[in-house]
């Protein structure tokens, strides 16, 4: 399959990706190991050792061993299985319902939680708030261009809320671990396991919070801030652990394993998502604003590590449904003028 976009001949990074260059064979600097390392055996081995060591010493000391950010997608479903079946953790699954989760994904969430015998907690902000937030993240330069090399602006807004809400739960219930289903390429190599100290990262989140408060009001604080009294009561910060990053497993194998729990692929999402109806729209906004697909880096990492073929990755990127994009544009009452302003968002800065 081909498209009209100039891409690396080995991975799927396109000519619009920041700081990219190609050699005479059309191979990019990411494939030549000159830009952005997403894999390093030494770091992976050390992370694996640290995860096992910390799980062993942290298990069984609280009501739950871990809170799992569970979207119902294939990666977080497999991560939840790993947490319960491979590592023997007592997990509280937490689902953030952004109002655009596919109904089939919700069936998956309930079925998998039931099959793994884990408690499940869902938080759903009002749809009015979510729509305001999606508009704000779509049409304002909320995040830096570098943050957006691996994620779309709207996905980042949802994930930031998921991370903060999960951290709040962990602090309130003294849960030592926070799990998520990220893969390398989606997150940096050095963040497979890290201690999550809210106050240390508070400063770095301030520019984002200020922009979002301006656009959607103080309601954002309910989902992106933690109260001082709770922070003052903290004796031990939890660890964020991205278990899937230390597994060498192809998408095909993941699907094979999770299907045993009754998990099924939703039909109303694009090729890069397995749970969220917003994804096609988010990618469309990203492509219009920055000129490349937000999944390029993640998929290129998978290709580089022989976990996906280039053809499969291209198929995913090109599986974008205009119907899904238009449905969201209509639901959010987005005007043609707003859409035509996207290319200017980061030029105004």
């Amino acid at each position, binding site marked *: 399959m081909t498209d009209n976009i100039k891409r690396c001949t080995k991975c799927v990074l396109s000519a619009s990706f920041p700081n990219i260059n190609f050699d005479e064979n059309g191979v990019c600097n990411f494939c030549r190991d000159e830009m952005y390392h997403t894999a390093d055996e030494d770091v992976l081995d050390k992370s694996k050792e640290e995860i096992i060591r910390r799980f062993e010493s942290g298990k069984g000391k609280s009501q739950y061993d871990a809170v799992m950010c569970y979207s119902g997608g294939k990666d977080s479903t497999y991560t939840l299985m790993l947490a319960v079946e491979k590592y023997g953790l007592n997990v509280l699954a937490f689902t953030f319902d952004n109002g655009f989760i596919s109904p089939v994904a919700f069936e998956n969430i309930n079925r998998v939680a039931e099959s793994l015998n884990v408690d499940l907690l869902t938080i759903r902000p009002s749809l009015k708030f979510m729509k305001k937030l999606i508009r704000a993240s779509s049409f304002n330069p909320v*995040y830096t261009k570098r943050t957006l090399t691996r994620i779309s602006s709207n996905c980042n807004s949802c994930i930031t809320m998921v991370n903060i809400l999960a951290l709040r739960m962990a602090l309130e219930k003294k849960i030592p671990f926070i799990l998520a289903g990220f893969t390398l390429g989606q997150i940096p190599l050095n963040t497979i396991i890290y201690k999550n100290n809210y106050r240390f990262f508070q*400063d770095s989140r301030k520019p984002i919070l200020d922009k979002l408060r301006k656009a959607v009001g103080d309601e954002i604080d309910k989902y992106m801030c933690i109260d001082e009294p709770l922070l003052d009561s903290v004796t031990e*910060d939890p660890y964020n652990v991205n278990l899937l990053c230390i597994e060498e497993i192809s998408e095909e194998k993941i699907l094979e394993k999770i299907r045993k729990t009754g998990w099924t692929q939703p039909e109303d999402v694009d090729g890069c998502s397995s749970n969220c109806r917003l994804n096609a729209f988010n990618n469309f906004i990203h492509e219009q604003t920055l000129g490349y697909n937000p999944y390029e880096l993640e998929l290129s990492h998978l290709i580089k590590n022989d976990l996906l073929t280039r053809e499969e990755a291209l198929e995913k990127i090109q599986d974008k449904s205009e119907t899904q994009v238009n449905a969201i544009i209509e639901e959010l009452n987005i005007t043609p003028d707003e859409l035509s302003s996207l290319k200017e968002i980061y030029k105004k800065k």
Partner: protein
Amino acid sequence: MAYTRDEIFNKLSDFVAQQFIVEKDEINMDESLIDQGVIDSLGLIEITTFIEKQFGVTVVEEDMTRENFGSMNKMVDHIFRAVNK
């Protein structure tokens, strides 16, 4: 292992340039990387983990201040002090 200030600076700036897809001469070494839009909170985690792994400097809670992490030069000074304790 002992490092000179220049060695620390070179290793840290190589890492930042490569991982955050930025040219070294684009970075103001006396300004916050966050304020310059070079890193976000995940980037901050990445840098602290790199410092721990590369220089053997454990970043404890008391070290997590703007005074130590507020710019490239401040980070280099912090690492230099820690490795030469």
